[in-house]
């Protein structure tokens, strides 16, 4: 077997005449591309734009909360700002971030395929995203929405005077983008694996996306239906959720969280996949407990559908339902714990490099740990009666969504940047930025745990003065965080034009994506690879000749 397809560094060092970036320069060649890598770039640009918009809203929120009174923003404006922050960040940044950008780019390459199973559907998914996003932007320009990202009824159906329907339609359409991406990934992973790429040879990044895709495919239709019902009530006054016309407001919450709890796993599983890659590859060692990490992703995806009621402990659901949901929440936290332990154990006796992606991975573990543990606090029903709807919740989900998913996204982006663009970024600035982000993040969100326990409710434009000191800390942290996020924008853009050229395998790793040129050719590989090594296999079996490589690249520490 060994000699079937040894990794030939000579060969992949040579650049192909055209890579996916140089294969056509017209606007049309981008907007009508069927290449998963180009679609990933389209997503990268548009998702980043939404991230910038969401970040602007976040800055406004933090500035307003600098003082107890609602002075910078009147409460009507403030309500719109936090609603739009949530909607943009959740539906238009976090959900598509890792799957649609990194997943899109890497899944076919990682399993040795030429493209996703349905290239046209992949492009279509981007157009759904763009149409949904444009509609939402249109609504924001017209005057925005003020319902909170949760759209609770009957406020959203009967009382809100804002553009609920336009935004709802935007989210509805955008949902198809998720569904199609999920479908595409599932089919691709089932049918397009290269010879020898068995399920248990797949990188954990692919496993995580498989689990995510299941949730996208099964969960997203529920939010679509919920939005439709909301529209029926708002436009046709058919009583579904508003008790004044015979509806039940709690029904909405069940439907909403039946999607949105699994959706929070859409917002973390891909990040966990990235972290598994980073931890294993930058310790230059096979990941500890591969199967356990792979199956814990699936377990999270499946059990994630059973705990939606933990968002409704004080919503008037029955005491017994509350107890069952509390119990199941405890159960679903175990697979996350398993992952954290396995990642930590992977470091043991590794050869750990301190490259920027690895810094992000370490920060991720620390922050996700806090996010996950506080999730247990919130799953403990007697405690959450006090904590729900306070800043404790806000801190919890920012620890998992920003400390978790966003850091994983940044780590992944830095890790695969040489592959995606063919350029290296500044090592120095990237480390500085990572550290600034870590510090800024903690300063922003840690005080919010304390604020929450003290009883400060969320979604407040004004608050009692005794909460001010901690809010000032939080706003100060947010400014640091903002700086930390702007720096990568600068040096990554700079690297595209002036960066050093990246070699095919700058980190010298065994994964398939490192066995093709940077950037890869349109069809990903010159010839279809045959896989005879396990994932994260650093032994000679994988064809990695480290002696040889070290000589060729002339590296010493």
């Amino acid at each position, binding site marked *: 077997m060994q000699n079937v397809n040894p990794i030939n560094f000579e060969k992949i060092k040579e650049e192909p005449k055209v890579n996916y970036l140089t294969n056509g320069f017209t606007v049309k060649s981008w907007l009508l591309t069927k290449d998963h890598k180009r679609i990933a770039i389209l997503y990268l640009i548009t998702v980043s734009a939404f991230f910038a918009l969401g970040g602007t809203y976040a800055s406004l929120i933090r500035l307003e909360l600098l003082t107890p009174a609602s002075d910078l923003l009147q409460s009507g404006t403030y309500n719109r700002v936090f609603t739009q922050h949530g909607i943009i960040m959740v539906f238009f940044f976090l959900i598509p971030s890792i799957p649609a950008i990194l997943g899109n780019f890497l899944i076919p390459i990682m399993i040795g395929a030429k493209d996703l199973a349905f290239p046209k559907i992949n492009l279509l998914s981007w157009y759904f995203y763009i149409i949904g996003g444009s509609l939402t932007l249109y609504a924001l320009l017209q005057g925005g929405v*003020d319902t909170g990202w949760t759209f609770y009824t009957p406020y959203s159906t009967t009382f809100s005077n804002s553009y609920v329907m336009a935004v709802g339609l935007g989210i509805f359409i955008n949902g198809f983008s998720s569904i199609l991406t999920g479908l595409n990934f599932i089919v691709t992973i089932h049918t397009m694996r290269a010879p020898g790429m068995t399920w248990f040879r797949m990188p954990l990044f692919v496993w995580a996306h498989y689990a995510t895709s299941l949730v996208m495919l099964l969960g997203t239709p529920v939010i679509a239906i919920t939005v439709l019902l909301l529209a029926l009530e708002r436009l046709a006054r058919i009583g579904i959720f508003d008790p004044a016309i015979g509806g039940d407001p709690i029904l909405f919450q069940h439907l909403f969280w039946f999607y949105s709890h699994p959706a929070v796993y859409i917002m973390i599983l891909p990040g966990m996949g990235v972290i598994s890659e980073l931890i294993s590859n930058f310790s*230059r060692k096979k990941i500890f407990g591969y199967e*356990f990490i792979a199956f814990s992703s699936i377990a999270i995806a499946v059990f994630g559908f059973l705990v939606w009621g933990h968002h409704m402990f004080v919503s008037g659901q029955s005491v017994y339902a509350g107890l069952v949901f509390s119990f199941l929440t405890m159960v679903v936290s175990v697979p996350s714990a398993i992952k954290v332990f396995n990642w930590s154990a992977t470091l043991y006796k590794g050869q750990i490099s301190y490259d920027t992606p690895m810094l992000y991975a370490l920060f991720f573990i620390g922050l996700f740990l806090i996010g996950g543990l506080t999730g247990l606090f919130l799953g403990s029903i007697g405690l959450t009666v006090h904590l729900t709807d306070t800043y404790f919740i806000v801190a919890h989900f920012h620890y998992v969504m920003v400390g978790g998913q966003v850091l994983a996204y940044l780590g992944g982006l830095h890790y695969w940047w040489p592959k995606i663009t063919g350029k290296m970024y500044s090592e120095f600035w990237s480390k500085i930025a990572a550290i600034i982000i870590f510090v800024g993040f903690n300063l922003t969100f840690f005080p919010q745990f304390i604020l929450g326990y003290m009883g400060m409710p969320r979604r407040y434009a004004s608050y009692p003065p005794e909460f001010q000191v901690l809010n000032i800390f939080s706003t100060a942290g947010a400014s640091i965080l903002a700086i930390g996020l702007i720096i990568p924008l600068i040096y990554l853009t700079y690297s595209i034009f002036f960066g050093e050229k990246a070699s095919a395998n700058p980190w010298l790793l065994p994964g398939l994506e490192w066995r093709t040129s940077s950037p890869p050719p349109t069809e990903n590989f010159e010839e279809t690879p045959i896989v005879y090594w396990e994932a994260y296999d650093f032994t000679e079996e994988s064809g990695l000749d480290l002696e040889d490589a070290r000589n060729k690249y002339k590296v010493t520490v």
Partner: protein
Amino acid sequence: MQENSWVPLFPEQASTFAWQVDTLYFYMLAVSTVVGIGIVAAIIFFFIKYREKEKYATGAEIHGSIGLETTWSIIPFIFAMTVFVGGAYVFYNQTRPPVDTTEIYVVGKQWMWKFQHSSGQREINELHVPVGRNIKLTMTTEDVLHDVYIPAFRTKMDVIPGRYTTLWFNAIKPGKYHLFCAEYCGLNHSGMGGWIYVMEQRDFDNWLSGNVSGQTPVQAGQDLFQNKLGCASCHAGGASQRGAKLEGIYGKDIKLTNGQAVKADDEYIRNSILNPSGQIVEGFQPIMPTFKGQVTEEQLISLVAYIKSLSGSTSSSSTNSGSTMNSTSSGRETMNNGGTNSTNLVAPRADRGDSNSQGSNPNAPKTQSEPTNRER
């Protein structure tokens, strides 16, 4: 009453179960800190100890260990179970009021809280309660979701249109505590709050007598029942009456024509008034008209209180009726206490004509509205 009742980092423990919530919190905090520090320390240790000795060197070949996997699945699970059991225990105390409670009625509306004591006193955005008494709030709202949250008592409960929810507490410490609305409710959500005043019994009695009450809920309900709404024309009169007998039904199981039996609680009475054909009592015809849109939430509460009193299950009502209103120090609206018409601050939902019916944002320019959804 102290102005600033906030201990740094933690709100005051002012209810019987507050210490239980805090104990659970400290337990979780302690375990989380130990576990967290342990893991982080291990990571940092590995990170330094196993820094690559040589570029592109390969780490040790370790693939996993069933023993370790089992250990670190079971230990977190056990911790999670202790947390679950602790939480369930505290929750039980938070949600199960003792039998002997003093009931206070709460109606939320954008963006104010209205309280009514069973002795008739009404308050807005303030609630005075005696220390050491079991207080049960029976709550509903006239418009959107709200949530009564009193951090010092470590409890909160959503207030839901179209039904009653309850929240109970027993305050252990006189003082002035924050009352917040914790469920987002539109424009002035953050302004929808106030204060809970916990008073020694003696001060509370003084306060009660200083705030001469209007009609008690039971009296107001009786007035509605007998005169205003004419319920009595069918539900009173002894053997000849056409409607079901209401004396003594509260808390009993009622048999319906469809064979089901339901417990006659507040919710049941409320539904019977608003949607009578939904639950016909065995042996009766579906002839009762609906009163939906004709009674306000506060009138409904009075009716419920009155019907409860027919079963002798309400706290004694105050007798000093007909006197002038009780003004509360921070009440934003003047309250009348007279007849059933003027008792109620707000007209029924169906004919509310004030700015509130325009939803959360009366300031919004007309062009910003989506008129299709506004039928009122």
